[in-house]
């Protein structure tokens, strides 16, 4: 087997892991599986493209690639703005849809269903605005560098891996060391008690939406940068995201990242062994195995 599959799997796994952290956080605090999470990845990718394109029109120097990467300063600047916008989008959807259902005391499954409707609307809206034609942040080509051991990676890929590592460590520290992280864990265990203990549960929910959306946006931009931007970008990643969140154990940030890498590496291995056309089935197989053997996942609490 070509060792390069390890690098491919690692990169795919990093993006799945980032997205899965968002899924696991929103799942553990809002208590429902959000089928619209994939669309946050897609929206993040397109928003960054739109902002980056606008910046490029303002100044051509912003588009000039920063060596050794394939993109100019317009993309990192656009990424920051896109993160904010994706966060606002998530907050808006919550205010219009999920928040209202929550206050009414709707059953979990009603929220799942609403997320299903929201995902359909959000995805097709992207298709309407940007059409289903694939898009790219940059036309510049990159040459992969040799890393030794038969592995090769482009500078963009290495940067994405590095940024993922930074993001995961930052989220982990936020969850374990800060006041808002403590509040998030408290709400995830017992929202009613958290309220009694003085935690503003609605504020925590807003923070979680924003955080999940921000991570989704980063994962979406990376996918767009390393693969391509399509309206179905997030939808096609949704099953891997769910599989990773459940394999890692709902609520566990390190679990989601580790499981994301496992899913990514398994997909890459399957591409080598079985064929690329079966890639999308890998997550389902992993999901079935987890549900059969250990439904609470690697680091999850017993239900």
């Amino acid at each position, binding site marked *: 087997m070509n060792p390069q599959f390890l690098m491919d799997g690692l990169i795919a796994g990093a993006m799945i892991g980032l997205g899965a952290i968002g899924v696991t956080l929103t799942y553990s605090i809002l208590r429902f599986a959000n089928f619209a999470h994939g669309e946050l990845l897609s929206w993040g990718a397109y928003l960054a493209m739109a902002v980056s394109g606008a910046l490029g029109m303002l100044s051509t120097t912003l588009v000039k690639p920063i060596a050794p990467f394939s993109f100019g300063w317009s993309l990192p600047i656009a990424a920051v703005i896109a993160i904010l916008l994706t966060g606002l989008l998530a907050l808006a959807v919550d205010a219009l849809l999920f928040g209202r259902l929550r206050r009414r005391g*709707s059953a*979990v499954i*009603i929220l799942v269903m609403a997320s299903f409707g929201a995902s359909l609307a959000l995805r*097709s809206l992207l298709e309407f605005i940007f059409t289903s034609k694939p898009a790219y942040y940059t036309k510049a080509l990159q040459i992969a560098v040799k890393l030794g051991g038969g592995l090769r990676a482009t500078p963009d890929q290495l940067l994405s891996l590095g940024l993922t590592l930074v993001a995961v460590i930052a989220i982990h520290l936020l969850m374990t060391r800060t006041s808002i992280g403590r509040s998030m864990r408290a709400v995830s265990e017992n929202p009613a008690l958290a309220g009694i203990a003085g935690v503003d549960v609605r504020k925590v929910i807003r923070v979680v939406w924003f955080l999940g959306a921000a991570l989704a946006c980063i994962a979406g931009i990376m996918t767009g940068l390393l693969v391509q931007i399509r309206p179905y970008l997030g939808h096609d990643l949704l099953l891997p995201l769910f599989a990773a969140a459940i394999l890692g154990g709902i609520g566990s940030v390190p679990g989601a990242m580790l499981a994301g890498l496992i899913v990514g590496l398994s997909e890459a291995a399957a591409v080598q062994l079985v064929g690329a056309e079966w890639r*999308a089935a890998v997550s389902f197989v992993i999901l079935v195995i987890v*549900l059969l053997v250990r439904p609470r996942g690697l680091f999850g609490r017993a239900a």
Partner: protein
Amino acid sequence: MSLDILAYGAFFLTMALTYAIMCLGLNIQWGQTGLFNVGIAAFVAIGAYVSAILTTPETPDRFGGFDLPIVVGWLGASIAAGLAAWLVGALTIRLRSDYLAIATFGVAVSVQLCVLNIQPLTGGAFGVGFIPRPFGSLAGNPLTFSLANLALTACVVLGLYLALEHLTKSPWGRVLRAIREDEVAAQALGKRPIRFRLQAFTIGGAIMGLAGAVQGHFIGFIAPDNYLPILTFQVWAMLIVGGSGNNRGAILGAVLVWGLWALTAAAVSAFVPPEQQARASSLQIVAIGVGLCLILLLRPRGILGEGRSSIAGRFKPKSKAQQKFKE
């Protein structure tokens, strides 16, 4: 001219009724039992392909082609889709309610992959053609052919409707309702909720498989594109519009939503310039998504009012117990 319209009307209604069958299957899963299935398209596809493989004439480059009667195909479709539903249900129904949703979503993705990639069985992207059509000998006369098919499909829907109504009123249906309204009490009476839920999910899956077969035979060919996630969305929209829990509502919802869908699609192709049609149809899907959310927010019991056995109980879980308390 008017005969053409009549033939088209019969064709349209027959298609709508095949969706009504799917809707009835979903109603027993969601409306009666509260199980959320995001993989309707997968169960429909399983039914359509199994029936096609059983009934098509022999083909050299494809497995299957057993040339069996259509009824055998229908039966095989129901059994295969029911079995698939049973497997998914057995895996997830004992877990959290949304794990079933995630698993059915996974089934939809995987079945779509299988249909595309196991070419020797499914014909890959080209699908399966020459599926025998009921009353195929009448095909020379479009009107008679359409009316005969409409009558046949209507009989299937009616038969299913009567059977499901009977089932709802049977002791089995009462247990299902009891579980839905007060799981703990039902458990205390010695009913095992997981088993009943699994049975309901399996029956629903089998009905969806039958729908796939009926539709496949009516059109005469099937391809992976017929079983995209949008199909799942459409069936959901139909049930929600009709009012879940209500079998008549499920049928009416299917006809209404399919009518609306076909009309807007026709309008798009008539009035929108060809290069903009893809965009216009994505707007059509946005409308379905927003509509689904709006109904959940504004009319959680469906547009057509409440079914006799509506899911209202689930929306106010406490009221019953407190009613007793107040007395």
